[in-house]
């Protein structure tokens, strides 16, 4: 069982735990600490379930099993099939830029703030094993070509935020639902406006000042997700290489904003759009404008 901490905030109660390599928060508009603790425990259990299922660091995760079974048709459970179907839609709609098979590029790139760029030879060896179009997906089955690997790092946390909120919501009747915010490291989703009409003020990390949340965003309902390179980048000859990699070339996207935050009805959608915006490089803002959703951008 994950450790959870519950405390009283200003006009709210706060539950905290750690999951998916992020600080996780449950904000509840009522002063009921017991309720907050119960909800936080439920949230932590669900986050842990999703982390265990889709972590690439655990060899027993569903994701690792799929990667180990590359080269043959494999059965998919419902949840995984739906996530992969979503990833497929993302790939199609982003014209191949959002690709969950591009994770193996990590072998060539370490974004540790140093100046060690990947060599073209390293990338040339990896690129044939990247490309979602090579994957065959049927409603309940997948054939992942040998040598390829899937990584749900770009989806799993946002998905977890939405699923946790869905679970917490289900504990209430529609009329008794309080305002709840699920915030996993800046990716967040709010159940409904606060009864007193006030906004939740939640900070978005500013890449220029790591750990100083200076851009507070007022949230009433819906989701926010942020993509950026505040901590992970390479710097060589004055060029900043973000950790956002173009799956077609294997190279980091350049001239992209440092950070993009998107507001959308759910976190999965917000996160996907924020990431896809960064993948557009210099066209990120034009892409965001075309989406017709609220966004914040740090250049």
């Amino acid at each position, binding site marked *: 069982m994950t450790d959870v901490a519950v405390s009283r905030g200003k006009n709210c109660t706060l539950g905290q735990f750690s999951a998916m390599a992020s600080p996780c928060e449950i904000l509840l508009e009522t002063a009921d600490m017991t309720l907050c603790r119960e909800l936080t425990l439920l949230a932590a259990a669900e986050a842990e379930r999703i982390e265990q299922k889709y972590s690439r660091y655990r060899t027993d995760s569903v994701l690792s099993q799929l990667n180990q079974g590359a080269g043959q048709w494999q059965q998919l459970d419902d949840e995984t099939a739906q996530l992969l179907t979503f990833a497929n839609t993302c790939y199609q709609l982003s014209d191949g830029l959002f690709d969950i098979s591009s994770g193996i590029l990590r072998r060539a790139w370490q974004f540790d703030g140093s100046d060690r760029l990947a060599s073209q030879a390293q990338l040339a060896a990896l690129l044939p094993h990247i490309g979602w179009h090579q994957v065959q997906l049927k409603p309940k089955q997948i054939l992942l070509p040998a040598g390829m690997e899937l990584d749900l790092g770009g989806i799993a946390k946002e998905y977890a935020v939405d699923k946790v909120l869905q679970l917490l919501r289900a504990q209430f*009747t529609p009329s008794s639902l309080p305002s709840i915010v699920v915030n996993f490291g800046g990716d967040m989703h709010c159940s409904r406006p606060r009864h007193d009409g006030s906004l939740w003020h939640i900070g978005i990390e500013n890449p220029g000042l790591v750990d100083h949340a200076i851009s507070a965003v007022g949230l009433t309902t819906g989701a926010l997700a942020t993509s950026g390179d505040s901590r992970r980048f390479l710097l060589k000859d004055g060029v900043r290489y973000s950790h956002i990699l173009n799956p077609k070339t294997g190279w980091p996207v350049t001239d992209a904003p440092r950070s993009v935050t998107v507001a959308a009805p759910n976190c999965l959608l917000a996160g996907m759009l924020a990431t896809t915006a960064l993948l557009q490089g210099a066209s990120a803002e034009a892409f965001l404008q075309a989406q017709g959703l609220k966004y914040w951008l740090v250049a």
Partner: protein
Amino acid sequence: MQLKQLANISAALAAASCAVLGQDAQAGTVLDDWQFNSAILLYNETDRVSAGEAILSARGDFGDDKYLNLGLVVDALTGASATGAVAQPGVQSFTRPSGKGSYDVAPGDTPLDDTFHDTRVQLDASWEQPLAPNWRVSGGGHLSKEYDYLSLGVNGSVARDFNQKNTTVSMGLAYSHDTISPEGGVASGFAPMLLRSNFADDDSYQAAFDATRDRADDTKDTVDMLLGLTQVINRDWLMQFNYSLSMADGYMTDPFKLVSVVNSNGEVQQNLYESRPDKRTKHSVYWQNKLHLGGTYLDASYRYMWDDWELKSHTADVKWRFPVSEQWYVEPQLRYYQQSAAEFYLPFLQQSDSLPQYASADYRIGKMSTYTLGAKFGTKLAAGNELSFRIALYQQNPEQDGADAPGVLANVDLYEKVTAVMAQVSYSF
């Protein structure tokens, strides 16, 4: 390439993300939850029928997408309804359908039976749940009881989602068994309406009346089948197509309706109880669009119905919901309906003609157009409850269809228009 990348993909992605999140959370417990809808409806036709109806429905969420739906409807009708007999220049006397008592109709007035009253109670229940991924099933039953009518039915449906739940194909089957037991028994086809004044005493009248009734009750069995296709066109547009087939077998005559037999001068010689076929097969196709249009919500539908009584109808219905403030919305409605007459519809029978196999003068199966003009005003209350008020004008315009009115009938209104007003208050909690 660049152009495509900068296209708006958020709508398509939103649909895809909802498909992923559509399934229930997989951990933890879900509390049972009941949602209730209640409504009171008042319906009033000028000089004719008045009805009051109370509706209470409940939907219980049992988790895992399992729901129990329960419904209770109680309605009471009172007032006068058209008998089918034609108006005349002089006073006419009628015997009530039960054979007990009579009433007179003033010159020029459309004959109405003013003792029309009934109370109906309807109960229905259904259970719905997923069967397998992308499959849903439901099953239920209903019971409806009036003073002289009992309807019992069962129904079931199955639906399959395709295309990331953007397409749903459904099939439904329903069966109902109805029993009618009119007071005084069921009149045989074209039995004459007897008048007590033409008999010497009560016993001879009663003996003659009983001879026109051949059974105490009769039944009707109906099988309905529905095929439906629901398609999400985009985030703001949902389209639905339905085809339905209804096959009824049994007593479909209205035991309270008459057909007048007139002479060449249009004078009523006799009133006969109507007679309808005992089989009816109806088909209908239905097309519905639900659209979000810049903060407003449009629901537009069209139905075409045809049957082997040669009755064809068109229904067009448009509702458009606009927000008028933070809390309130207004929803105007316009519905237009047009039908052709059933093949055996006749406003009256001519004495000189031989009796047809079937005949009914019920204006509701004659050539007619109707329209409904209404508006609903609704508000979201605190705690998510919803209150709405609806008011509507319902106009029925029966039309002449071929038959010329001989003699005195030329001077009376054979196709009297009926105007009704409806008012409804609904509360969801």
